[in-house]
């Protein structure tokens, strides 16, 4: 059960260009465990949408099943939401997007939901470059079923029971880059500074944007020996800082070209990466894979915007669908009428 927050609003709480306060982007009260990484991600999504001046009703939220997949109930109350079945959110999102290409699609999934039961659908939604933001709240375990290892659990990571995982992990980030994703980032639920701009960039990206966000499960996978614990991730996180400059806002402070690298997105907004971060060409798949591998060899976790292909064709481009949403077409436009049927009949005589 999700209670609504008391609708008290502080008189001078800041508003965005649409005149909405941050509160306007909130959802029901979370029923997750206190300290769950997922709640921090929900908060970041709220900030990102607030700052991007998005109309909540222009967003459709989709998820599978899991603690992570519950979170769409905890942000953007003003948006429609579809909490589907376990591991199959990508197909539901695909259908929804086909019906109306004009909405903003935010998918929330878990590592079990996407890398275990959902592996097949995940691979194929990437392949189709569906225009959506796909957020994996990655805690290396099945939270809602009480902590079993998921497919993203690292070799040698120990479960709460103390068992050591022996299977090589599926890194959704690498697989996505492999299969043709056009925007791939990794972040940490505890790093709002990086996560919020990344979310904004993902939402602004035209095509499939994957964000794999390490999000510790405080109840089942936050212990010593877990590579998905707050402590471990904080220690091992090699975070590449990310700035996001929305389209309309002209760039004020001039940066020394030497220290920053700017990626201009399809809609004109800009992702600014700091030199420190720009250690490889994030527009080349192989070097992205190489960089990720180099870090993980040292047991480090490289986070930030890891790869981007700015002009990949999204599904509607590949299909050549009309600009106008299919769900807006009227009977008049769709139904050929009896005249055509006569010609059909004629052809069959």
């Amino acid at each position: 059960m999700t209670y609504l927050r008391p609708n008290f609003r502080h008189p001078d709480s800041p508003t965005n260009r649409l005149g909405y306060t941050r509160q306007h982007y909130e959802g029901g009260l979370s029923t997750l465990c206190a300290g769950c990484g997922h709640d921090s991600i929900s908060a970041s999504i709220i900030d990102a949408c607030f700052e991007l001046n998005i109309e909540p009703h222009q967003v459709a939220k989709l998820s599978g099943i899991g603690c992570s997949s519950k979170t769409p109930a905890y942000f953007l109350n003003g948006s429609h939401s579809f909490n589907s079945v376990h591991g199959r959110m990508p197909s539901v999102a695909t259908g929804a997007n086909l019906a109306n290409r004009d909405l903003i699609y935010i998918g929330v999934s878990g590592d079990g939901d996407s890398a275990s039961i959902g592996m097949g659908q995940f691979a194929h939604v990437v392949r189709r470059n569906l225009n959506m933001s796909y957020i994996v709240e990655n805690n290396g375990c099945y939270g809602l079923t009480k902590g079993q290892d998921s497919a993203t659990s690292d070799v040698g990571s120990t479960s709460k029971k103390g068992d050591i995982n022996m299977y090589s992990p599926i890194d959704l980030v690498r697989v996505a880059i492999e299969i043709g994703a056009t925007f791939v980032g990794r972040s940490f639920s505890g790093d709002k500074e990086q996560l919020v701009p990344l979310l904004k960039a993902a939402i602004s990206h035209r095509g499939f944007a994957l964000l794999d966000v390490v999000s510790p499960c405080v109840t089942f996978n936050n212990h010593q020996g877990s590579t998905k614990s707050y402590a471990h991730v904080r220690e091992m996180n090699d975070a590449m800082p990310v700035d996001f400059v929305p389209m309309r806002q002209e760039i004020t402070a001039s940066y020394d070209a030497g220290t920053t690298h700017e990626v201009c997105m399809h809609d004109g907004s800009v992702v600014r990466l700091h030199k420190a971060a720009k250690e490889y060409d994030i527009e080349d798949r192989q070097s992205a894979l190489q960089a990720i591998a180099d870090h993980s060899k040292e047991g480090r976790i490289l986070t930030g915007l890891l790869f981007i292909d700015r002009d990949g064709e999204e599904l509607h481009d590949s299909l050549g669908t009309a600009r106008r949403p299919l769900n807006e077409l009227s009977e008049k436009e769709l139904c050929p009428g009896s005249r055509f049927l006569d010609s059909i009949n004629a052809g069959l005589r």
Partner: protein
Amino acid sequence: MQSKQAVNDFVIKFANVNGTGSASANGMFAKAIFRMGIPVSPRNIFPSNIQGMPTWYEVRVSEAGYLGRRGGTDIMVCVNPQSMARDVEAVDPGGYFIYDSTKPLDLRLIRDDIHYIGIPLTEICLREYTDARQRLLFKNVIYVGALAALLNIDFEILKNLVGDQFKGKEKLITPNIYALELGHQYAHEHFTCPMSIRLEQGRTVAKHISDFDQILMDGNTAAALGAVYAGATVAAWYPITPSTSVVDAFDKYCRRLRIDPGTGKKNYAIVQAEDELSAMGMVIGANWNGARAFTATSGPGLSLMGEFLGLAYFAEVPAVLIDVQRAGPSTGMPTRTQQSDVLAAAYASHGDTKHVLLFPATPAECFEMTLQSFDLAERLQTPIIIMSDLDLGMNEWMSPPLEFDDSHTYDRGKVLSHDDLEGMSERFGRYLDSDGDGIPYRTYPGAHPDKGAYFTRGSSKDEYAAYTEDGQAYVRNMDRLLKKFETAKTLVPEAKTKQASKATEYGVMFFGTTASPSYEAVEILEAEGIALDTCRIRAFPFNTEVEEFIRDHERIFTIEQNRDGQMRRLLINETGVRAKSKLVPVLEYDGLPITARKIAATMRSYILESNVTSLADRQPVEELTS
């Protein structure tokens, strides 16, 4: 030996090797008879294989206009050595066996009760053509030419058909006509034409066909057209025989009708999903978002869609699924027909679920019911499953022309628009039964800036779509879904019943492709003085006609193409009347469409016996069922 005499009423069968181009030649043969104004029903009996295996093409010619299988074979045209032994056996006494006489016939294949007509097809081809491919292809055309002479097919019609077939590839026309003539000539020179079984044009038109304004088309194409006319804009599917041609045809028509002339952009989207789970997920997502979307599949796909069908039922999302049934279980016989997904479809998914099923019996109904299914899906906010089958879907059927009433308007169901929401004072309750029909109101995502947003989920919810584990809220919701299913009874196509000429305690029930042979069987028995009322079921949930029909008869034969009498079970379960002791199963499940002869024989023997022992003392005899 006396030879069978028949005019416009016989069964001819072609035995070929698949992948040798026989299909088009055989199709041309059937079409020619059709164009002569003589009722014809062709059936492809093909292997689950691409090339080199035996395949058959059975054509029934029936002046009376019977389109179901009759049973038996009067003429066998055998151009496949692999299956020759079987094929000789299959010919009825007095019938004809037409074969390639280039090599002399194996003596063991000689029967003294049938006629043999040898045509040196290979020899002719070797003489006439140098190219191997041509030799292969024209062999088929040559025997069609010969049959034209033997059966008295109007040669002009054949020539025109060649013309139609090769529109665009005109240079192929002459050689094909030449091949036809080769066969035609050979037959005329070597045999008395026409033979005792033959065609005659312009005789009284079939009593089942008011006037001969008919078309020849397959059910899958008709269903696809239905989807086009229904304004379906999204099709998500995964290839599987025998449903593949539904989406192929949808694609074909959309390319003609749905491309924006200005931009060249598509007003539709077809996605080949990675599997059937995904296909159904896409259909659900698209319908949820206000587009009309559908998928087509067969048995294995239906099994894989179970979880999603349960979600759509419980979360109340419209969806249209065309199940072109084939012989199960599991992979079964992928290129054989059956009606064996009835229970799996009606009760698909775990928990308490029931699904609306439609049972088309003709291409025209494939068109109408698919058209209607989208209205039903959106009105009822639930999946609608169209139960077609391989026989109906992939074979060409004579059918009245497709009709569409231009005054028709879509029923998009209970959807609150921006303005509806704007005008609403009370709080929007997605799952409120405001109208008492069990059907709630929905909104599309993005409909309104601050009203009407709700949370769709497969878990338990209250009237306002809020998650709940409260038992009473759950029960209210489940009971409303039952009420909605009751409402469905008033919306789905009613059953078609027909009274016999005289009063009778016997009835026959059937659905889909068991209809034609059942009607024929009933007439066979009628001629013998045995009267049977008929009821053709067209939808589940069953509406009142069905219950009344069962109530009003003492014994009712249920004709089905499955082993377990699945429709009979559904009738027993889902009607309020006493049925079990009344419904006598008549089943065929060898993968071929049931024949009129078989149905007639089964009912006849049961009824004659019953005249001895009184009905009351008899239970439905399961043994009757083959």
